[in-house]
């Protein structure tokens, strides 16, 4: 019973076995890549963003949000929101935060997002990435 004198079944099963082995190894590789692999999360725009990348008026719905880089020197990321031409809300021209960081005190009533950095010193993260890294080009349009 069960014997196959020609050995054809043996050869076929062996091929099948090798195939299964390769498939399983592939599975292992996929698992390894999924669990261990993948680049470390690149540094994100909060510390490396270029000027102008944040400057979308929230009201400008439907428009692509990336605007051309502004000539301003790489600004403090935290203050970017303040520097943006601020739209619908009552007090848009939030220039002060930009010109004198120290004045941007956390106040609940403040119209624009306010930076609590009293010292006004630029975070380190900014200075270490002077070159324009790939500007985030969100494909989504702002839904306001």
């Amino acid at each position, binding site marked *: 019973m069960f014997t196959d004198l020609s050995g054809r079944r043996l050869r076929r099963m062996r091929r099948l*076995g090798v195939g299964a082995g390769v498939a399983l190894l592939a599975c*292992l590789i996929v698992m390894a890549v*999924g669990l261990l692999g*993948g680049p470390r999360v690149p540094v994100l725009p909060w510390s490396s963003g270029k000027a102008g990348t944040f400057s979308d008026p929230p009201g400008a719905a439907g428009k692509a949000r990336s605007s051309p880089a502004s000539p301003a020197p790489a600004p403090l990321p935290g203050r970017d929101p303040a520097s943006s031409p601020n739209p619908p809300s009552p007090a848009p021209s939030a220039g002060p935060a930009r010109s004198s960081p120290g004045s941007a005190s956390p106040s609940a009533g403040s119209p624009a997002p306010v930076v609590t950095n009293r010292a006004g010193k630029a975070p380190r993260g900014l200075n270490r990435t002077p070159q324009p890294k790939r500007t985030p080009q969100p494909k989504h349009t702002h839904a306001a």
Partner: protein
Amino acid sequence: MAPRGHWFLVGLVLLVFALGLLVEGYSHGVLGENSSGVAQAQTGGPGAPRAVLHGGPVINATGARPLTYRMQRRTVALTFDDGPDPVWTPRILAILRRYHVPATFFAVGTHAASYPGLIRQELADGAEIGSHTYTHLDLAGGWQEQLQLTLTQNALAGVAGVRTSLLRPPYSSTPDAVTAVQWHAYRQAAADGYLIALASLDTRDWARPGVDKIAAAAMPAANRGAIVMMHDSGGNRSETVRALPQIITRLKARGYRFTTVTGALGLPRADMPASTGQRVAGLALVITQQAADHAVSLLAIMLVAATVLTVTRALLLVAFARAHRRRLTQPERSMPSWRYLPGVSIVVPAYNEQAGIAATVTSLLASEYNGDFEVVVVDDGSTDATAAIVTHLGLPGVRLIRQANGGKPAALNHGIAVARHDILVLVDGDTVFQTDTLARLVNRMQDPAIGAVSGNTKVGNRTGILGRWQHLEYVMGFNLDRRMYDMIRAMPTVPGAVGAFRRRALAAAGWLSGDTLAEDTDLTMAICRTGWEVTYEQTAIAWTEAPASLRQLWRQRYRWCYGTMQSMWKHRRAIIEHGASGRLGRRCLTYLMFFHVLLPLFAPIVDIALIYSLLFLNPLRAAEFWTGFACLQALICAYALRLDRERLTPLWALPLQQVVYRQLLYLVTVQSLITALLGSHQRWQPIHRAGTFTDHDPTGTAPRDPVITGASAAEHASTPRDGPPPERNAANTASVW
């Protein structure tokens, strides 16, 4: 030599399966926000910088000094943590769509990987995605932070091709609740470029405080802006779903604008296209996670199936055994006529049986049988002193027949051919009869419909754990399985150790055949198919010597298992045949198929499930399950021991069968099945036999059971029964194969 390559494959399968379970175990039980987690995360007291404690809910901690952002007036960002969830997330998305309101979802990576469609739907609806770690881990925990954040990014890249720069740490709330330990973890995340998004208003909806309370908690004071924290997963979120329309309509009535977190701050969107590398890694992760999800579901299904099968079988066996016992106590069966005394020929095939043959032959001659009987020893070309020992015994009534080595079936056929009588008792050369065995066996032949009778084999060497295990197995096999076979009138095996046959039945079955490695099973099935009844006499006891080492046990079981499969295959047509043959096919072959082939293949699942449940699930529940299982097994075994009038003391060894013994039995099944599939033939040719058994340690002990009576017992005790294990017959068979 048997094939080996498949063990590598089996190992790989196990490795992949184990890794998958590890992944699933790691991400298992991701519940999301809960009171114990929150309480634990918020111990340690304050310690974050004042700027954070009194600042806005969004924190940029990249610099030396933290920057915090507050929301603009009359602006609200609805945020949902812990999702996506197949039940609640779609409902929340539907509400958001109905009111044209954007939201921010802080996704748990493992959920994102498990439900990729929901993440894509969230993005398509204009929602923003933030990270909530991979398994809702308390980031203050330490070393896993980097891994968790990367895995979450990969998961998002895999499901939707995005990465996110927004992080809401699990168990976080409003900024004034940030502890020193948490702050340390946030700083680390910020170093990777994450913007930490806490909440201004924590609805604590996970505690299910009621719809009104959730809605009230989401209302900012005055016209302040707010990030509202809610949850779309981690439990029943029906209250959240019902509160959401209220929150939206009330805030809209107050003139609030709805936006995403970054939208409220005028920042670019947090989710951005991921790099190709990240997408590839993410895809691999998503595949792994989903495969792991499926693997665990599969595991659960198989475990349930295996449990149901095992319990069903147990109940079935006990029911049949009870019925069998009741039948035996009926008056017409309890008083058999002892006047039926036909002539009997006992045929003993012997190949290199020098160790045990003397004991076998003397025990046979000591039989208290009042009829005429002879013993025919067929020396199958032994290379040892087997023949000399038999000759030297010089016992009357013993005939020695010598033949060139031809295999056990050929030896038996030879012996049967020269035997004088028509009732034939076939006995292995390593088996010892009790004085009453022969009489009890032959007595059942009174019924002219009966073609064969199976005796009850017991393990003589019960010392050591292996001997005890086999003893228990034999007792269960002979007192439960065999009684059932007797009841359903379909017996798959009359053991080679002890069985009586009618010559006409043997002739109808075509005598013994060398087609399979289990000639006894093959023969019994063949007899069953001819329509002769095969029955069981549980009082006809023969003592056999069980293999004393794992290696020998493996060989013996391999032969049995493979031989049984061969016999089943040989007689497979019985399934569709009519009459006695169909009865064997449909009742017995299906039973063997399920419980002797398929169930052992499922058995490894049970071990894997045990390890998994001990590591990742509630170990107490796992222990309960296993204790229940062990108790059921012990009860059944105790019943079998009682039926056989055996002591219950060896029962202690039963739970230990779960290690080593069970694994050996199922691995043997795997090995047999693979060998059958490969159809390898030459590999069965033994290369050199002599050396294999000479190094075998003589371990046999005479049966010391009190059941053995009088002179025969003394004889057994005084006879050295050290010798090779039973599978030498297998080797013998294989040599001519």
